[in-house]
């Protein structure tokens, strides 16, 4: 029990520390792929520190909600990240919430951020919020269907138990899991505002989603929101790693924490490089094509779930 609490604290600090590194790594790989030298992988840390030092400029009619949302959102995402095992499954918070609770916590963060986008009463915030909620309306069910597929196979929705089961190696290769993986990657791309859904580097208003929603934020508030976005990216990478590639992770009974940690770093590096490669090889799609993209994810995940529901007899 005490070990689990220590692991949990280490885990929360680790995800917080690694999140900007992952973003910096992706930016670096992307720069190299398009032939630029790119900034150091440590640049996101410097950006966050700079934002934290700056003053906050608030719109005249911004309410208390606008000022508290960055904290609420960061907390919800940090807590959700605390539920995903990365180097060990022996976490004190693991039984507090399962995958469904994790999705809902991310939903809480999104709900409040979308509200904040509407608080100042400018058009950009409204554009961002309404598009974000449309994307979420398709991405969230797709993600839940992925959870259903996995949960039917493993008989649990707890991430720690799923990781242990998947490491057991009794699952083998399954069509449903492949479908679920594809769907989950599509959802992760959409939820993290990456190309082709959204462009994290854009400043052209009409194509923005996430950036439009947070346009009025500045200073420490913006630092928290950017930090939360980085955490969310890490979280999705960790979820995919935990469900589909949990190898190397320590469990309460066996495995070493160091191997768990190193394997997690290796997985993150691979995921980051793969994302960068994908992003440089594809163009951003129009906002209203997003529905088709995510509808495809939803159908794939539903198909995977149905395969499993049918194949698993009494």
């Amino acid at each position, binding site marked *: 029990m005490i070990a689990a609490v220590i692991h949990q604290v280490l885990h929360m600090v680790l995800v917080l520390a690694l999140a900007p590194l992952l973003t910096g790594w992706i930016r670096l790989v992307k720069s190299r792929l398009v032939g630029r030298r790119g900034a150091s992988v440590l640049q996101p840390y410097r950006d966050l520190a700079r934002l934290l030092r*700056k003053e906050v400029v608030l719109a005249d009619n911004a309410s208390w909600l606008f000022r508290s949302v960055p904290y609420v959102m960061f907390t919800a995402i940090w807590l959700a990240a605390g539920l995903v095992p990365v180097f060990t499954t022996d976490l004190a918070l693991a*039984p507090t*919430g399962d995958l469904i609770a994790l999705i809902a916590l991310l*939903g809480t963060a999104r709900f409040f951020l979308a509200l904040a986008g509407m608080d100042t*009463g400018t058009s950009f915030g409204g554009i961002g919020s*309404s598009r974000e909620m449309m994307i*979420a*309306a398709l991405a*969230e069910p797709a993600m839940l269907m992925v959870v259903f597929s996995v949960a039917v196979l493993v008989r649990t929705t707890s991430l720690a138990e799923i990781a242990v089961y998947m490491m057991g190696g009794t699952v083998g290769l399954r069509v449903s899991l492949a479908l679920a993986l594809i769907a989950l990657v599509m959802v992760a791309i959409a939820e993290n505002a990456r190309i082709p859904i959204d462009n994290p580097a854009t400043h052209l208003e009409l194509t923005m989603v996430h950036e439009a929603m947070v346009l009025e934020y500045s200073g420490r508030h913006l630092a928290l929101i950017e930090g939360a976005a980085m955490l969310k990216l890490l979280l999705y990478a960790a979820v995919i790693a935990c469900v589909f590639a949990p190898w190397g992770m320590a469990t309460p009974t066996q495995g070493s924490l160091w191997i768990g940690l190193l394997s997690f770093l290796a997985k993150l590096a691979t995921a980051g490089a793969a994302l960068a490669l994908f992003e440089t090889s594809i163009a951003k799609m129009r906002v209203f094509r997003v529905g088709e993209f995510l509808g495809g994810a939803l159908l794939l995940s539903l198909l995977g779930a149905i395969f499993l529901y049918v194949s698993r007899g009494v």
Partner: protein
Amino acid sequence: MTLLFVALLALFALAVVGVAARRSPWVGTAVYGGTAAACGLIGLWAVEALVGRGGVAAAVLPIGLPWIGVHLRADGVSAFFLLVVALGGVTASLFGWGYERAHARALAHHAADHTHGESGPVLPFFPLFLAGMSLVLLANDAFSFLVSWEFMSLTSWLLVLSTHREPDTPDAARLYLVMAVLGTACLLLAFGLLVGTGGDYRFDAIRQHPPEAGAAALTVLLVVLGAGSKAGLVPLHVWLPLAHPAAPSHVSALMSGVMTKVAVYALVRVLFDLLGEPMWWWGGALMAAGAVTAVMGVLYALMQDDVKRLLACSTIENIGVIVIALGLALVFKASHTPVIAALALSAALLHVVNHSLFKSLLFFVAGAILTATGTRDLNRLGGLIHRMPTTAVLALIGAAAISALPPLNGFVGEWLLFQAILNAPALPEWSLKIGIAVVGAAVALAAALAAACFVRLYGIAFLGRPRSAEAGRAGEVGRAMLAGMAIPAALCVALGVLPTLVIRLFEPAVRAMVQAGPFDDRSYQPWIWLAPTSAIGNSYNGLILLAMIAALSVALVLAIHRWASDRVRRSIAWGCGHDGADPAALSQYSASSFAQPIRRAFGGTVFNARDRVDMPEPGDTRPARLTVRWTDPAWAFLFTPVRRAVNWLADHVDALQFLTIRSYLTLMFAALVVVLALVAVVRS
């Protein structure tokens, strides 16, 4: 049951007071105070019955039909639903008292202003409506059930008519009456089939001799139609978005939050109790109806610009979720896995109490907005968070709870439902396995769309800049109204943090219906951890989640303010060149523009929604306009054709009124011959 009878008699007496003393200035206080007290008594009795003795109590009153009397009986299910009615009654009385006083004051203020017409009487029918709902829950024979059901419908219809001076009310009330009559007719036939040829109307007798397969199937259909039209199952929901908002806000809260639950009670009572052993396809049919209702309901809600109409449409969605959970419970009951059935039924009942709480709360919020600004149109609201700070906080709790966000109560209900859905692969029927996966996707889709819907409601009404002068002038509402909103808001948080307490409170109800409890295969009885199935590791703890969120946020705030900058500067937001020249905040997103992405993604196919841009020629000074047009498939494909057919039939049958006596005699003779021929055929 003496306490219960005292409370019910008090409700009837209060109605008399409401009529007799209608000119007196203290009548509102007396009736609402008395109603709150009586509902409090009912609630206390229900809790005592659930905790103390599994809820069973019975009585026969020597009134009503001779030789039959009125049989009343409360078991766990009745007690649980009575508690929901009582909770709604207490908060609605409290809120209604403040609401009516505020409106009376506004009326005195605008004495010369004819827009605020005097409204019809609410007072006498308000306690009667609550008494009617309680009697439906207590009825133990078909006759008193139907009489109470009609009583409930009529009193709520009269309450809707109290706003008869508003232009939309008469049509809404007429449609409601037609649908209520239709629903009762279905229930009447259903009970006729249940009673069978024996002619014993008591539920105890019906339970002894459940109908055979064919009659049972027909009964299921009729009950789903009858109770479903009251609850708002698609496509029988058409009256609901019109009639619920037409009533005064505290009555809307009761109709949407509580009366629909009485219809759910009717479904539970007949399908789980009176009909005996269920067949699996009953549950399948319920789930299909529920899934369509859930998704359609929330899509309707996203298309609405009227706050109260939006809330009524969201009720349709929530009823869909409840009906899905009921269907799941039936399926598992039919396949003899009672613990999972208990889990699904617990999810349904938890969602019943959750929805009654947050929907009452949100209708009260709509009432507060109406009191403060005089409008329900989202496109005329905005910025209320600055002018109604307390209401804004309570509304935020309601919006977050109904969007199923942890750690509030709405999430727990959906979490339980998902846990039950995950057990579907154990079912033997193939169609169900596939169907339930699709239903799960529908629930997830409805939940995600509901979040979008309530971001829209809250963001447009409370955030941003005011879209009209009234919204800019609004002020906070009185203490009674705030208290009426604060109680359900507090309960939304409490039930989200400690859901196990309420699940164990209504365990007698679940046990009475599926003969098992949701925690039966656990070795211990949990009270903080919600861990319903024996599957490893599926657990949820709202308390720790809330504590963690609070602790981490506080730590974060302290850390940021200690080590980072805490300077703040206020400035004008960039308004795309509209600054100062945009007093009506037109450059802001409106309710329709917020819904536009979702309208484009879903509305095109479902509602045939089309946006038309009217762009004036260069040189023309008219503003460009964007109009949204959409058609309701329920009207386009069902009700309008039916109405045409009925009219056509009426026109043609009308000729029969003007025949000669000779023709009438011929017709009678022909009818006699046909009947005799039929009898001859049947006999042989």
